């Protein structure tokens, strides 16, 4: 049984590592761009990956409150996208 549990732990670590590497990879998009939307796309990606990591950590570290944090991050990534579109859009020439 103990062997079974360590396999599970290993899978958990593998998945967490994959997600963290995805987070690091999204930085490439911020650096290389080339457009503004591209750079903000990486924020969207980080929020999706970050929610995944938080959910896994909530299970792994027995901290159910992290699920709430994941919920908030998902919500506020959407707010940031909306803010970009509203604030940095070229104003209409009327």
């Amino acid at each position, binding site marked *: 049984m103990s062997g079974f549990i360590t396999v599970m*732990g290993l899978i958990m*670590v593998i998945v*967490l*590592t994959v997600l*963290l*590497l995805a*987070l*690091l990879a*999204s*930085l490439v998009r*911020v*650096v290389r*761009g080339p457009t*503004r939307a591209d*750079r*903000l796309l*990486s*924020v969207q990606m*980080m*929020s999706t990956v*970050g929610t995944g*990591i*938080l959910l896994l*950590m*909530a299970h792994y*570290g027995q*901290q*159910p*409150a*992290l699920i*709430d*944090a994941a*919920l*908030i*991050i998902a*919500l*506020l*990534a*959407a*707010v*940031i996208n*909306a*803010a*970009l*579109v*509203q*604030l*940095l*859009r*070229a*104003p*209409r020439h009327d």
Partner: protein
Amino acid sequence: MTADGFFDALLAMLIVSLACGALYSRSLYRAVVFFIALGLSLALVWARLSAPDLALAEAAIGAGLTGVLLLSALKHQAAEPLRPMRPSFQLLMAVLTGVTFLLVLTTVWSMPAGMAQVGQLALNSVNDSGVEHPITAVLLNFRAWDTLLELLVVVLALLGVRQLKLPNDRLPVAWPLLLAWSKLLAPLSLLLGVYLLWRGADAPGGAFQAGALIGSGLLMLKLVGLAPTTPWSHWGIRLLVLLGSFTFLLVAMATDVFGAGWLTYPPGWNKALILLIEVAATASIALSLAMLAGSDHRELNQ
């Protein structure tokens, strides 16, 4: 190297590269995006350091509000060229900060393990505070003075912004998709905020996280032009901004005059009083943060 250590090292690497990106990008927009991403990742660090309260607060404040603030500041900036300082000066500063880093690092690493006495004291007396969650107990009972002053800082910041001559600009008309989306998102943030406030008594959450969350929902409505105007000249708005500090001060004075002393809640009443203060503080924080970030000339300077 253990699995946990590997995870920590990756996380630390991520944070350092994000910070370097935020600090040393040539383009201002890139720096802002890096900074938003840094806020998101710091939430992961707080989660790792078993501080879920902070993860919640950072997710709401560091990732959401600060991002909107910086993006709206970016809008007003002219395309000012970034003039770096002389290389010799930069090098000097790098050497100075490097030496400081080594000195402080050796000091902090040699600090003894174990919790400070006051932390232990707080943990031991949570049961007398009226709430089960130790951090809420510290914020609203043991160190309520700090929290009261903090609410005043929020009000002060808003008053400070009122003194400035703000640019009077109009946002473009929002796309229908954005309107529909924010009509969905704003009630959701209110719901989630109330949920966090309610959970704050016995689990991570509380007035600040809830206030920041509701504030960002309100801010989003302001950005797309759906929110009713909140002019400072209206007495209701002023009352709502000051509600948190007033309630707190009233409770403090009442306990001082009729009870055992300044902010020493009478036994049996503490849960109700804490809840009262928290609800008032949440409303004030939400409105103040939304106005700090999103109100313009018409609303703040009459």
